[in-house]
């Protein structure tokens, strides 16, 4: 497993606050923390872009705005307009959510165009495409990555943090393998400590979206004393989306997809034996 110093890690973190109940006080704190810990960006809702930009004046921290967030179900025109406005107000990175339903329906041209319009409206800002991997099969994730690259996106990103589950290294690895080395991969949702962060980075993530950035950096300071076992991969099932699939949160078809994935997996016997 690769090791990173704290400052390198900080420059990989989008310090994130996207809850609907976050007022200016929280955004101000977010920006202060981003400056103090030298995160690469703050990731905020469009309504907070201008305010965040002001708080960050004179610092290297950039503003990242989400678009079509969190469901991705706005029309393309609205997403493009939302992106354009965010860039005008100071955002230099845009995290857009795809229309997940259209992706599930196989409307690939629509998805490509949806992304392309946002990319064009956002220029020169960089665009990260949120796939919401929890609602896609592996095949769909691969296809969505290909469409993102074709549409000129700069990053693909796993999750909104509002879906059935967040990022898993299985998905990050799949995305990295698909987009190749020249496109960024952002892992977001459920990245809550240093070990999670390292797991994602080693799977191919070049950016992390998290509200736990400070915890991650504080944890990283401890790890130089930590025994190797701390960083060793756990039983694969602990970090597998199939094992984490929730019947309550996932649609029936996807729940069955993940259940089947689990039933066919070679690790299953080892897992059951370990816990029997």
């Amino acid at each position, binding site marked *: 497993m690769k090791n990173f110093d704290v400052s390198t890690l900080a420059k990989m973190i989008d310090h994130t606050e996207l809850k609907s109940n976050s007022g200016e006080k929280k955004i101000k704190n977010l920006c202060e*923390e981003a400056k*103090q810990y030298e995160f690469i960006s703050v990731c905020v809702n469009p309504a907070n872009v201008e305010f965040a930009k002001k708080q960050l004046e004179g610092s290297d921290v950039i503003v990242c705005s989400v678009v079509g967030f969190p469901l991705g179900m706005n029309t393309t025109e609205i997403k493009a307009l939302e992106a354009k406005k965010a860039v005008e107000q100071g955002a230099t990175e845009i995290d857009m959510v795809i229309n997940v339903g259209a992706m599930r329906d196989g409307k690939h041209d629509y998805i490509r165009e949806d992304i392309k319009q946002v990319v064009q409206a956002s220029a020169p800002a960089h665009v990260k495409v949120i796939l919401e991997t929890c609602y896609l099969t592996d095949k769909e994730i691969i296809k969505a990555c290909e469409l993102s690259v074709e549409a000129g996106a700069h990053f693909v990103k796993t999750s909104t943090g509002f879906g059935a589950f967040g990022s898993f290294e299985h998905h990050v690895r799949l995305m990295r393998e698909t987009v190749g080395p020249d496109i960024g991969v952002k892992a977001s949702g459920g990245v*809550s*400590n*240093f*070990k*999670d962060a390292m797991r994602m980075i080693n799977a191919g993530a070049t950016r992390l979206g998290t509200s*736990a950035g*400070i*915890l991650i950096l*504080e*944890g990283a*300071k*401890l790890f*130089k*004393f*930590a*025994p*190797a*076992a*701390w960083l*060793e991969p*756990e*039983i694969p099932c*602990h970090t597998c989306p199939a094992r984490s699939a929730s019947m309550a949160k996932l649609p029936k078809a996807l729940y069955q997809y993940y259940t089947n994935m689990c039933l066919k997996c070679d690790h299953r016997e080892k897992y059951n034996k*370990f*816990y*029997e």
Partner: protein
Amino acid sequence: MNGWMNKIVEVNLNTGKQKTLIIDEEVRRKYLGGRGLGLKLYTDMCSADTNPLDEDNALIFLTGPLTGIIQTAGRYQVTSRSPLTGTIADSSSGGFFGANLKKAGFDGLVITGKSEKPVYLEVTEEGIEIKNAMNIWGKDTHETMKMLKDESSSNISVACIGPAGENLVPYAAIMNDKDRAAGRGGMGAVMGSKNLKAITAFGKKEIPVSDPEGLKKMISTINTLIDKNPVTGKSLQLLGTSVLVNVINAHGMYPTENFKRGVFNDAEGTCGEKIAETILQGRSACFKCPIACGRKTKTSKREGEGPEYETVWAFGAQLGISDLETITEANYTCNELGLDTITTGSTIGCAMELYEKGVFPEKLEWGDSSNLVKLVEDIAYKRGIGKDLALGSKKLAEKYGKPELAMQVKGMELPAYDPRGAQGQALSYATSNRGGCHMQGYLISPEILGSPVFLDRYSIEGKAEIVALFQDISAAVDSLVLCRFLQFAISIDTFKDMLNIVTGLNFTEDELLKVGTRIYNLERKFNSEAGFSRKDDMLPPRFLEEVLTEGASRNRVVQLDEMLDRYYKLRGWDKNGIPSEEIMKELGI
């Protein structure tokens, strides 16, 4: 030196004389304060032959370099030899007493000798005065604190013993600031053996700080880190330590009926959420602490503080009791009489199992709460069966021919986590220098709470390393005399920054960690001279031979031997758990 008042005074209660101890700069750097410096002073003054309740024994109250300055640093640390275990012992307590002692101009007090008559010490900016305590001897801790405050000022902090300490119950606590306790290891009995009823402290002296501007930023950083951590920023604030009841029960490692089971069916009735719904009146905080985990509560009879997680368990699941009102009353009674709630409850649980096995003469049944509060009183006054229960579980179970039924390590009762559910915690219990305690290495943090990361609780891989690391960090933090809860949120690197900003020392993280390692080894050296060895780094056979039959930790036993071998090797100790000359030399002991 910044961060210190540069004054530790030895008070000899035989002669009434006071002597300021000169602490060498190198010693301060090697042992800091609190647990570390207390250990160093103790081992310089006393030997493994010292009887804990003899007048020759020293009782050391120490603050640390951050006391009175930083969040949670109102604490103090007491060091002596434990009358319960015979090991070196340290016990820590929150509140404000430590801050007041330091602001009165004293980093610590070393109490030696024994007064002919009951006395208390009044510590002010003017000095230390030994005063007659005849009128408060026999009073409970709350009454003692009230009388001393009435006599002096409501601003003072009082650390005192109750009847349990006066009666030399080997697990008597020292209570301060009403309901804060230096609970474990029987420091209250050592205090009682010296006829020392209380110490009062108050002061407003400025504590010198090396970098005041840096300190302001550091205080803000600490607040941020506390706020961001889900344990310190949310769980402990909302539900107090009893937030753990449902968590640990769900993991099948909530010890029930003297650790016979790992799932308590009535946990819902005694959990943090239930406390919040029923008896909770408000939160209480120690010195400058934003967490405020303390619970102000009220029963139908009176008001008080608690119960904390361990106490909810000790008088609850451990005894099969789910009557929250009685559990809380038993807690209040322990606070007033000055008893360690963990050992008190666990010893009663041991007696219940002895009764179940037909060897204990008095009827004590699982789930029967009708006599619980009276039992606690009987222990403090050593009345009736209370005299037996006051022995602690180890001696009690030995007396009745069933030593295996005492759930203890080195004579100290285990707290509320069944080691079969967390292999690292099991090793930590076994190798703890003060006995069966969770505070010297809280492996529940990574194994259950995922802080700083989740570790597989069933695996023994890497656990020796993690236990040693946690034990050393904890010893270092105890020597800064900060609340352990900060360890959820703050790394050793930041602790080092705090120390440097306040003192102006230029510690590295490695150096601070080495302080912890040094302390752990010196404690071990003292214990080995007192006859402790591998045979004592042992868990009760229940955990090594019997599996839990239900819950999420079922079908497991502790794989202790394998972990112990690795742990000793890693520590540089021999196969018997004794530190080598080389490691002592390397650590400058």
